[in-house]
């Protein structure tokens, strides 16, 4: 395991008022691998992603990107580093077409005007390289299916030569065939050398594409394991009680609060 992590989260704490949402959280993302980030509702997955992508400032700890500690204080900073986040349902602007969406916030210009021709060609090239041919570049995002929306959002990461792509439940609202398509795309991103973080509640998805699993439990990192070294039910235990066998946050008499079931 000589490969250096592309993105390293070390000892991150985050509180909202009196509520501590993240406690000493660690996560490693390696290039060319899919790291699944799993945890129950409220475990802190989304908060962690927002801390990495610069939406929330972190209270303590470090984010290390490509070996050097970085401060990410806005989504623009994250994008500049090459961290792209694909949000579940907030990814696209319905009224804008595919090209506009892919370039939103980073438009190409000639003079003061938008350079539509260049943007259209770059978008076309990117989609073609991902074998996406079912959509027309100028159709508004509102007319896309769920799978197509995720595909476009992911294609954005490719377009911008991102190095880390974080996908927030990309298959949550998709049917079987579309899920398979998106997962294939996720795998292809990793095979191209990107570090991919896949947030998912779906164990089938996790085991289908991930190389590693980071499990969060009540705001703490329960375990970072290789997917091949654990079973389905072990991961479920990590998610629901924070440990399995000798892996994870072993129970001590103080840690039983909040275990009353799924929220």
């Amino acid at each position, binding site marked *: 395991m000589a490969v250096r992590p592309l993105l390293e989260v070390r000892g991150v704490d985050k509180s909202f008022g009196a509520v501590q949402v993240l406690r000493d959280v660690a996560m490693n993302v390696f290039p060319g691998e899919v790291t699944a980030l799993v945890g129950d509702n409220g475990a802190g997955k989304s908060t962690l992603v927002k801390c990495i992508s610069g939406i929330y400032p972190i209270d303590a700890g470090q984010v290390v990107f490509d070996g050097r500690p970085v401060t990410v204080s806005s989504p623009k900073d994250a994008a500049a580093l090459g961290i792209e986040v694909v949000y579940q349902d907030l990814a696209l602007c319905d*009224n804008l077409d595919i090209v506009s969406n892919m370039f*939103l916030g980073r438009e190409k210009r000639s003079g003061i005007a938008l350079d539509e021709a260049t943007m259209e060609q770059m978008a076309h*090239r990117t989609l073609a390289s991902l074998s996406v041919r079912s959509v027309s570049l100028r159709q508004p995002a509102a007319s896309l299916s769920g799978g197509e929306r995720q595909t476009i959002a992911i294609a954005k990461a490719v377009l911008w030569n991102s190095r880390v792509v974080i996908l927030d439940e990309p298959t949550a609202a998709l049917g079987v065939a579309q899920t398979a398509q998106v997962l294939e795309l996720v795998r292809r991103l990793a095979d191209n050398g990107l570090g991919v973080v896949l947030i998912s509640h779906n164990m089938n998805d996790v085991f289908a594409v991930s190389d590693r699993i980071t499990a969060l439990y009540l705001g703490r990192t329960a375990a970072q394991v290789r997917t091949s070294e654990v079973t389905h039910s072990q991961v479920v235990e990590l998610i629901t009680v924070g440990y399995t066998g000798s892996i994870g946050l072993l129970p001590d008499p103080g840690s039983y609060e909040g275990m009353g079931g799924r929220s």
Partner: protein
Amino acid sequence: MSVITPPGQAPDQQVVADAPPSDSYLKRLGNLQSVWILGVLLLIILAFSLAAGDKFLSTSNFSLISQNIAVWAVLGVGMTFVIITSGIDLSIGSVLVFSSVVAAKVMAASGGDSWGVAGLGILAAIASGVAWGVLNGFLVAKAKIPALIVTLGSLSIALGLAQVLTGGIDIRSVPEALTDFNTYVRILGVPALPFVALVVVVIGGIVLHKTKFGRYTYAIGSNELGARRVGINVDRHLIMVYALSGAMAGLGAVLALAQFGTTTIAGQSLTNLNVIAAVVIGGTSIFGGQGSIFGTVVGLFIPAVLQAGFVIIGVEAFWQGVAVGTVLVAAVYVDQSRRAAALRGASAPNPLLAMFRTRK
């Protein structure tokens, strides 16, 4: 060919890149509400032409119509931007009054009828309009007060302050440079005020449809959180959009001064609603994310043409309100049907057909 090959792209992919986009421009154009509302306008013009002939279809009639909508067209440019962000600006009429009072005071204090004095007044009007707009925008974007409430408040405050400043009596000392500009000047055969409005409309259209500023305006109205997530400074942009609306109200104040030779303190109480109606008739969605300056101009022409036409064919002008109200409601109904269709995953259908289809 102006292809920029991004790093890491194989040159052979350019072959793929040259493939034409599959949706034709014409088809996209046909899906715009502003295009079919233009058809409605042409129908109205045709109907009046058949009824009144040359009397309606004369240059002088259309010159009069364009003069009547010049001020509203300028206001409509700002309003289109605001409504596309899914906001609203009810204060434009009052801000126009306030700005015209400030401008008239400044010009009266400087004294004289020259363009120098008028120039001071123009600066004062636009500056006060921008100030109101920035205030509106700040309260909407930073204080998170709904735009309807903020601008309802500033509607009241701006008008109130204008009345305080003048004691409620209109100021009539407008420099001759300004009033002559309206009365005598023609640019390329177009009367001066409509010409100014046309320039503003064209610039507004370019900014909205061809620049980053315009693109972000659509993005915010379409998906504000999404726009934030890609790093757009939404608050700053909203403030700028409301400031633009204020600036247009300031410029509108100058045009109104030139047109009437006096401030119009009591005359702008329905301006905001008329402009909003025009913007919405023109296909700009009150839900945000959609609209065009072209549509707004068409939307302005419909009530103006109806009014002029009714007068010429001898129908009481009161019917104008009835007709405009009907067009407004119909336009929003069609807009909603199209959105519902889009949400169902269909590409936007022909709205005229959709009108019949959604009846079930």
